[in-house]
């Protein structure tokens, strides 16, 4: 890796490495982080060194394909009232929890699927608000999950029958998320203990439900593995270990890429703050993803008035074919 100049210089000009695609990094996002950081630095009791020497260099330059808009109240508050995320505040259970809270926001609070939709990106940023000195009960971690609306999926397995490979066995998955992304600030096993992962349903497996009985669980396992493998291949299940940039144990941000083949619905974004493998706070918000304009109109017509849609499809196809043929016939003369 190449690094030009000193660290301070690198903070002002995002390094060449990240902006390889030639896209202009939206500086505003970085500014937002810095702004939130500056505001929160006052509230938090900092135990480490001065912020400006370490905060920015690790922040990889943004690669947003969508223009970054700041949600309202992004920098708004040390009290978190203007933030899109609702923090749980004090979690019941173990003592020591509740002293650290999440204050976070998103760059966009809704995703619109337009005719030219080619995937998008959710930029999550936030900070840890402390009411006392930084606890020493293990290292701090941040895990962010983004879960799409559940779908019923049939997983089929091909088998050789009389020389032909055809679908034989199948497993019905009652609910599997249509999209699942998990971004963490480090290796998941170290960040969140297994019981906490089960409790808060962190991880793809914790999101997949089939109605098969326990006795069939062993047979179901390869089907569930296949489901995860195929969904990962489609780009709708992603484990992004290390994608959350955590600076000074206070500021964090992450980019979660959204593929073009998104399913409509409400996407749940959750942030988990962990210390020594235990979840100490969580915050969540909902991001609606919807088709808009013509895309929405076509889809609704197809599903709500299928006969009209069918007739329209025929009429439009006939018209297009006829116009194109006439156009070229005129051209040839």
């Amino acid at each position, binding site marked *: 890796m190449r690094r030009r100049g000193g660290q301070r210089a690198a903070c002002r000009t995002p390094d060449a490495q990240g902006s390889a695609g030639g896209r202009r990094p939206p500086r505003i996002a970085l500014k937002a982080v810095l702004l939130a950081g500056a505001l929160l630095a006052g509230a938090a009791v900092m135990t480490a060194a001065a912020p400006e020497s370490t905060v920015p260099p690790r922040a990889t330059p943004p690669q947003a394909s969508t223009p970054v808009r700041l949600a309202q109240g992004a920098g708004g508050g040390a009290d978190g009232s203007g933030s899109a995320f609702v923090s749980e505040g004090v979690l019941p259970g173990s003592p020591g929890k509740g002293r650290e809270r999440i204050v976070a926001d998103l760059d966009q609070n809704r995703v619109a699927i337009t005719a030219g939709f080619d995937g998008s990106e959710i930029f999550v940023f936030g900070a840890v608000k402390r009411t006392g000195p930084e606890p020493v009960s293990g290292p701090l971690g941040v895990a962010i999950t983004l879960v799409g609306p559940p779908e019923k999926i*049939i997983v089929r397995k091909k088998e050789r029958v009389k020389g032909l490979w055809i679908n034989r066995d199948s497993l019905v998955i009652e609910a599997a998320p249509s999209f699942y992304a998990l971004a963490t600030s480090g290796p998941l096993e170290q960040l969140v203990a297994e019981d906490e992962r089960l409790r808060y349903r962190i991880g793809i497996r914790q999101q997949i439900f089939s109605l098969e009985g326990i006795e069939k669980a062993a047979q179901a396992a390869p089907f569930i593995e296949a489901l995860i493998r195929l969904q990962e291949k489609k780009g709708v299940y992603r484990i992004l270990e290390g994608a959350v940039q955590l600076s000074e144990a206070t500021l964090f941000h992450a980019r979660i890429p959204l593929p073009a083949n998104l399913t409509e619905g409400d996407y749940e974004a959750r942030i988990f703050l962990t210390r020594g493998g235990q979840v100490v706070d969580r915050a969540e918000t909902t991001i609606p993803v919807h088709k808009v304009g013509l895309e929405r109109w076509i889809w609704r017509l197809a599903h709500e008035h299928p006969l009209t849609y069918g007739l329209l499809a025929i009429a439009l196809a006939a018209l297009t074919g006829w116009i*194109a043929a006439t156009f070229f016939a005129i051209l040839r003369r």
Partner: protein
Amino acid sequence: MQIYLPIAEMSVNVFVLLGLGGLVGVMSGMFGVGGGFLLTPLLMLLGVPSTISVATVANQVVGSSVSGVLAQIRRRGVDFRMGLVLLAGGLAGAAFGMILFEKLRRMGQADLLISLSYVVFLGAIGSLMLLESLRAMVQSRKGPVRRKLHRHGLIHRLPVKIRFRTSGLYISIFPPLLVGAGVGVLVAIMGVGGGFIMVPAMIYVLEMPTKVVIGTSLFQITFVAAFTTILHAVNSQSVDLVLAIFLLLGGAIGAQIGTRLGARMPAEQLRILLALLVLAVCIRLGLGLVIEPDELYSLEIVRGG
């Protein structure tokens, strides 16, 4: 430039769609066949779900044959009475094909049904065409052989005879009904116009004169494809209008190129080329059924329930 297909729920490059439509257009311009038999498998390769491919290509066929029918009507190349009989059979066949398609789709065997029908029909038509063209090439070297004007086979012995004036035929109503029905089934389950089966059947089975074959088959195909589009739209909401329109636009451009290319090549060679292409698609699909796939598992997202 990407376009989001609202029904297939995926984003595809516009130029890929135009190119695909164009390629099929070149085919249809060169060989005079619809090209649906290439379009459906190509869309599936692109990642469009098979049911949406089949339904959308049926819609595309409507658009690509409409202008042809209009031109043929002007040229008096359509035997309307024969067309209507074929159409009656075609609609019944399409309805039956839809029931079969839906049943197998529920069982998760739609892909198998589509692939198998492609392999069988492309294989049969491709080899027949190849043999026929090779024989014709050999014969043209030996000198022409006169074919009998009238053969009295089975189709002349069946009851309920009808006079088809434009075609100059007096035959039973059943063979055209059956031919129409067979093609109707194919439109429903394969998403093809069926011209590649219809035209040989009309020439060799019904013994129609060549000048009305193209027009009459286009006439029947247009209506059967329209009917199938509606059935798919109502049954499974799998017709993607946006996809169909981009394929049509590409197809219109491709057809112009294809017509010019076709005019430069000798007809016999052209037919051999088409036969080889049909066989290649057949072999490709056939291998997919026989060779162990890389991924044994597949997903089906159950919508609306």
